[in-house]
């Protein structure tokens, strides 16, 4: 027998350190999961390499193909992690009673949310770095300078918030299997019809106002504009940010109202 003493000595760690521990846990679980890795990194890279090498099978509009394509793939990576992965992981946490169990742990809900945010952002940083390196190797030359870089960071952060709020809305309302199916379906639909890879201007005129109002369209077109140095006026960037913020607001309000913890 070991000399364990159970003599009570309770206490919790500071919020930031609990949130960090939670973020590390979630990130490890996602990186360990083959399907999640597939949509987080393998599919975006395939689309980047395939899209760059495929000639003009798909019309990407004016400009060098790789310069138009890479920002879209970056947006796709954000979509996969902040929406699809988060929704699936959280829905199964609900199903397996993890959220319930954590409700009785020292980790408060604010810490849980903070931990999830840190986990999503950390994975995104990794994805974006890999995609950027592969893009650069394929000849990507981002233009747009400091203003473009700042605008990109803002768009990615607000876009992540928007997709995450929608992902949690899905995770907190339907069964885990339904959330899994819906999250993947939304990923595919937005990828093809949501102006993720294909510029808004390449869609039929009637569809352009619609796709640019989608969170995917706002994020991806914003990144394309910022990283090709077009439409870099404050008004344009703010337009995309406003669309994403509106999606975040709707997602957050509905999530708070409807989220079921078990």
């Amino acid at each position, binding site marked *: 027998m*070991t000399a*364990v003493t*159970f*003599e009570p000595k*309770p206490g919790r760690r500071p919020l930031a350190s609990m949130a960090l521990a939670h973020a590390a*846990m979630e990130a490890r679980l996602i990186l360990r999961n083959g399907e999640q890795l597939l949509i987080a990194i393998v599919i975006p890279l395939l689309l980047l390499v395939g899209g760059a090498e495929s000639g003009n099978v798909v019309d990407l509009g004016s400009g060098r193909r790789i310069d138009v394509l890479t920002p879209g793939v970056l947006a796709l990576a954000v979509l996969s992690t902040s929406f699809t992965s988060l929704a699936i992981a959280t829905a199964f946490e609900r199903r397996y009673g*993890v959220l319930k169990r954590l409700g009785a*742990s020292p*980790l408060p809900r604010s810490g849980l949310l903070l931990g999830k945010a840190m986990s999503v952002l950390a994975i995104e940083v990794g994805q974006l770095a890999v995609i950027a390196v592969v893009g650069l190797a394929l000849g990507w030359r981002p233009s747009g300078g400091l203003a473009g870089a700042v605008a990109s960071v803002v768009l990615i952060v607000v876009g992540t918030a928007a997709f995450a709020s929608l992902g949690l809305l899905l995770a907190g309302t339907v069964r885990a299997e339904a959330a899994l199916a819906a999250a993947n379906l939304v990923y595919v639909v937005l990828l093809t019809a949501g102006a993720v890879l294909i510029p808004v201007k390449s869609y039929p005129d009637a569809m352009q106002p619609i796709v640019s109002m989608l969170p995917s369209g706002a994020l991806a077109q914003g990144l394309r504009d910022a990283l090709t140095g077009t439409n870099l006026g404050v008004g344009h960037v703010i337009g995309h940010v406003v669309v994403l913020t509106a999606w975040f607001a709707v997602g957050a309000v509905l999530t708070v109202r409807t989220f079921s913890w078990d």
Partner: protein
Amino acid sequence: MTDHAGPAVAVDDLVVRYGERTAVDGLGLSVERGSVTAILGPNGAGKTTAVEVCEGLRRPTAGSVRVLGLDPQTQHARLAPRVGVMLQNGGAWSGVRAEELLRYVASLHAHPLPVSQLVELLGLGSCGRTPYRRLSGGQQQRLALAAAVIGRPELVFLDEPTSGLDPQARRAAWDLVERLRADGVTVVLTTHYLEEAEQLATQVYVIDHGRVIAQGAPADLTASRSRNSIRFEAKPGLDVASLAATLPDDHAVTEVEPGVYRVVGQLTPHTLSAVAEWLARLGILPDALAVERRTLEDVFLELTGRELRT
């Protein structure tokens, strides 16, 4: 660590309704500090709901609940670090490894127990790197038990801690509960195993349909009415009502399982002879006939007319 002198858990007139269904219906409990309290009852009696209210996981419909002097709803942030919780099932990511889960829970607490010692104590060493979904039911139970105590809580709630465990693992879990008590931890456990309540608990609450139907130390509960039982085995389907008719009113006769009969009541030597005469009239020589010490099972049967494990 104590910031008030009252009971560890005080539940008064607790009511919990889910829509039309009343799960807990005027429940009252008082758990002394340092005790092991068992909440005993059949499935669906409201045990889990009552415990989840104490853990702050459910809102009461009515009534008052104080845990370590705090309100589990409004003072949850102060209470949670001091309370260890084992849910009845689940509570872990399917892909998490056993030791990884314990390290994670430990990282939420200020003074956790060493993971390695707890792993050894609960015999989880061989499956430390196994993902949760591949653990056996018994390993999952022991892991949940370890996670409940790793933060060195003052009070632990264990919801059916040994259901599904083999006898050896159950013994290990019982040892753990005894060590917790020896080290000054208050333990509240739910169970539908009578021997578990009799073995571990200093105080037992028998609950049914969401309310307490008996309470006391196990020995007091089984001895209080000094009523033993007569058990006999014969062919199934005998007319127990006709036997009951020959006995005083406070006696109950049931066929507890096919061919096994139990007579409970204020037994006297005459009761035994009445049973023997009734059998003789039917021309039956029982396969077994014995006077048995009253158990919590009998207490439950008398109070509800039903078996605990049905």
